[in-house]
């Protein structure tokens, strides 16, 4: 299966990765090879097989409804790229 650079750009946009024209071409070639390789899955007999999302057949454990996490805003925001007045800053979002 081959991917063209327009498809690569669409995927890159979904993944929020900036790609220039050269990278788009490279991705198109590289990803096509990988998808060719993955085509092998089509040989599998998967009729009636349940998809397996987890290695273990277990159920979700529940935690009691209690506040256990203290305020650590200063600690967490010490590693943030841009904060003001306790808020994380991003370029203006237009609704």
């Amino acid at each position: 299966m081959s991917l063209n650079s327009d498809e690569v750009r669409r995927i890159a946009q979904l993944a929020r990765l900036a790609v220039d024209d050269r990278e788009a071409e490279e991705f198109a070639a590289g990803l096509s090879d990988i998808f060719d390789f993955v085509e092998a899955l089509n040989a599998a007999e998967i009729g009636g097989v349940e998809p397996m999302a987890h290695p273990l057949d277990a159920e979700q454990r529940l935690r009691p409804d209690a506040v256990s996490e203290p305020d650590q805003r200063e600690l967490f925001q010490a590693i943030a790229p841009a904060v003001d007045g306790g808020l994380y800053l991003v370029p203006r979002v237009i609704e």
Partner: protein
Amino acid sequence: MKLDTLAGWARRLRARDISSRELTEFYLGRIDRLDSQLNSFISVTPDLALAAADAADERLARGDEAPLLGLPVAQKDIFCTFGVRTSCGSKMLDNFIAPYTATVVERMNAAGAVMLGKTNMDEFAMGSSNETSHYGPVRNPWDPERVPGGSSGGSAAAVAARLVPAATGTDTGGSIRQPAAFCGITGIKPTYGRVSRYGMIAFASSLDQAGPMAASAEDCALMLNAMAGFDPRDSTSVERPVEDFTAGLGADLKGLRIGLPREFFGEGLDPGVRAATEAALAVLRERGAELIEISLPNSGLSVPAYYVVAPAECSSNLARYDGVRFGHRCDEPRDLTDLYTRSRAEGFGAEVKRRIMIGTYVLSAGYYDAYYLKAQKVRRLIADDFRRAFGQVDVIAGPTSPETPFRLGEKSADPVQMYLSDIYTIAVNLAGLPGLSMPAGTVGNLPVGMQLIGNYFDEARLLGVAHQFQQETDWHARMPAAFV
């Protein structure tokens, strides 16, 4: 000072033969002197290490019996460590000083371990050669022109060169076992859910599992005793009492049924690796084990299935690196889209981007069923193969990798060839089973690893088999000449 194993150092610390400070200084000195040849550490933390060593010496003086008390270890730079940069091998997290500590690290600290630093790794654990690290490739101590394997290549090289007696690794498709094989050490990926994933930076959540890397099975058992255990912070952590993994080391191999999957000995296996593996199997047979040929018919689909499932999970797991709350942010973003796309394009390397692209594609509208869902179904077929096999045998054995360590750059241009390096290890992650790699011989000067795969929660048996093998052989005790 004469080098020793983790277990050996533990005995000498308790005998007050040596202090933790002396031991820590000894290994810090080796790192300082020798790591420039390997690049196995991203961060060395001597101040923290010496403070921990002094605290350990006080505890030792009080007769404290914590299992890893005073022992130097290294943490793969994928585990969050409070106040210490946790980069995951990526430019994206080059400035990330972790504000909390991973459960595995907390458990090891509580057991008295002394962390010397954080080891190099493939970026976000995506790689089989340690060449994708933002901090440069790690070199194989047996041959500096060759790769140490990946993604836990820094831990493997550091242990092989005895820059540290033991280190942690993580294994999503073979990232403990393949570098252990390439570097001639022992490493075990436990059953999925045995070791907490909290604070271990996620690559593919349903496959990732942490485990120990050390010279011997005995050392791995000591480490695993501290690492394993239920964690209420991880929903996929198994609520089950932790056994003493050192207790089964003496178990006899008599009557042990070892399955040899014919798919692991077929085309693509290097003849030297095959010969070394067969010789190692003969040792096990001599000790009383029965060798039985088995089949894992769907194992050939494991690499294609993995390269759908793992990138799918990774594409979502790595969406949080957006330049807003932590990590790399591009300069002067024009608008929100620019902030996202440029921060991510600058922060991630080529292989990480490639996997994000694959994962985004296989989950996108119109492709989900054809790729993701199909791969999840094949995943079940693969797990079912193992289930049937373990009805017949106690342990499965074969080569860890189809080849000995390849040269730096040899496979960089061909991702598919690189991915096939994990052809024997990946199925184990898809099924969630425990898998161990131990030194089984050499081809020329290069180590060969043998893989042992166990049934769910059968780590103690794998460690026992490896320990018995290591009683008969000395492959695990050999060291690369440049580091003796």
